[in-house]
């Protein structure tokens, strides 16, 4: 009877320890889910040398976060964002080629060719006007063009959204990055922009030289001087005047120039965007970072080799109404009309340009295709 009572008591009134444990589990569980739901993405710290300067703008509504960057990286390599799941951003922007594709013009999802050459994606954080004609003021707006252009990835963003919503992979990643697992057009563009802002190339031999840790060869130093100097035959200063437009540690200035490739234009360049005649045949001054990896050159990829580029600036500038005044009558000889660099001087300049190759950038695992590691897991 006593034992039975005891048993009954045990069944009816579980011990205080049991209750406490149960309650603790409950609160712990609530706390976990609660903190998971409100978990803020982790800020991403951009790292670059101080001499790159801080003149860049990150939109207030799209701060860079680790979760956003990772999602953007997955999307950069995601073929579902193209018509017929045929290509991704990578198809025209391969990391090993400093995010170019080695082609004059690139083939889109429909098999047609783009009208201009794929640009390198290095140090976009500092770019203020995207594309060869500068039509986009930020990466969020920029990304919509190649995604939807029929000659490129050729898929409406609404369709990309629908495709990603059907996956198991993406909704939680959007939730982690933006706090909502309802995938939208804007989140896709924002994530891509976040990833692209992290593509910083700042560890070339030139950077190491600037940091005092790489002693350049005599040829590299000669090339650097020619690259930097404006020619002044009176003062016996020889130069190629490259720095006038490609100056500074980033090797581009936010400029649009007609660099004398043509005298009549099949592509009016920046004029198409501004509708101002002064902009006819003007194109963006691109970065020269990793230039030895990003052939072919110019907005239409007309030059296969860097030597042809040097020859162009040295000997083949074509006159037109909008030709850059910095390319007119600039010469190493008194009253000369052309640059008049010697063959060995051109080789020296190419030797300097090779210093801009950043092998850490093109092999950085944080920029590589993350789907490959996902599959192997």
């Amino acid at each position: 009877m006593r034992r039975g009572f005891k048993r009954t008591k045990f069944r009816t009134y579980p011990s205080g320890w049991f209750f406490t444990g149960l309650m603790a589990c409950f609160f712990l569980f609530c706390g976990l889910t609660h903190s998971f739901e409100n978990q803020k993405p982790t800020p991403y710290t951009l790292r670059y040398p101080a001499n790159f300067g801080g003149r860049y703008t990150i939109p207030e509504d799209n701060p860079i976060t680790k979760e956003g960057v990772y999602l953007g990286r997955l999307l950069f390599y995601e073929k579902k964002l193209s018509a017929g799941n045929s290509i991704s951003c990578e198809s025209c922007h391969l990391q090993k080629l400093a995010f170019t594709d080695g082609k004059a013009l690139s083939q889109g999802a429909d098999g047609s060719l783009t009208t201009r050459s794929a640009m390198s994606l290095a140090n976009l954080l500092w770019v203020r006007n995207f594309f060869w004609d500068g039509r986009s003021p930020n990466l969020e707006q920029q990304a919509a063009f190649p995604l939807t252009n029929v000659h490129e990835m050729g898929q409406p963003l609404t369709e990309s959204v629908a495709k990603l919503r059907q996956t198991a992979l993406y909704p939680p990643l959007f939730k982690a990055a933006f706090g909502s697992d309802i995938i939208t057009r804007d989140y896709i563009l924002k994530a891509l922009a976040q990833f692209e802002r992290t593509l910083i190339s700042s560890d070339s031999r030139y950077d190491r030289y600037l940091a005092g840790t790489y002693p350049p060869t005599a040829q590299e130093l000669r090339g650097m001087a020619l690259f930097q100097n404006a020619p002044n035959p009176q003062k016996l200063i020889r130069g190629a005047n490259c720095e006038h437009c490609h100056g500074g540690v980033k090797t581009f200035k936010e400029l649009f120039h007609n660099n004398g490739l043509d005298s009549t234009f099949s592509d009016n360049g920046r004029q198409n965007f501004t509708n101002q005649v002064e902009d006819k045949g003007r194109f963006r001054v691109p970065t020269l970072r990793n230039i030895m990896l990003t052939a072919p050159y110019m907005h239409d990829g007309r030059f296969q080799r860097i030597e042809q580029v040097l020859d162009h600036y040295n000997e083949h500038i074509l006159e037109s109404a909008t030709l850059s005044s910095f390319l007119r009558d600039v010469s190493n000889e008194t009253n000369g009309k052309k640059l008049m660099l010697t063959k060995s001087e051109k080789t020296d300049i190419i030797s300097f340009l090779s210093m801009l190759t950043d092998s850490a950038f093109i092999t950085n695992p944080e920029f590589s295709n993350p789907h490959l590691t996902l599959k192997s897991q």
Partner: protein
Amino acid sequence: MSRFTLHVRISLWLLLFSLGLSVSGFSQNTSTLTITGEVTTPLDLTLQKLSAFKQVSQKVKDRDGKEHEFKGVALIELLEKAGVTTGSKLRGENLAKYVLIKAADGYEVIYSLAEIDPEFASQVIILAIEKDGQPLPAGEGPFRIITPNDKKPARWIREVRSIKVAFAKD
């Protein structure tokens, strides 16, 4: 009487319409210069509109090492027209204003507002439209800033397309 009014009305409309056409045709071929930002009246200027301002000229040595006579309008006059805080109003927080000038090719330079104001500076910065009696050539004009006391002409910005007054916000 009513037929007469109708005639007048129609011809007035036609006149307005053709004027509108010619103006729009004109503006397509004419470069404009905007003054925006911390102004009371944003301005959209053309060569024609600039000719209504008082013309000043300066003889200065340009990049080519030769002396040229640049003619145009004092930049301060344009800023005053736009209602920028100049003269007696250029004090307090207004001293933290700068003027960002952009060129057609994307080139940009800044001046502090005080640098342009004659109560601070002894020089007159001009928005030039002529050089040696001729309109500024392509690639240089139609508008160019001339800052006589700047020894290096890097801020003598060519092909000026916009002038923006802003507060330094750091």
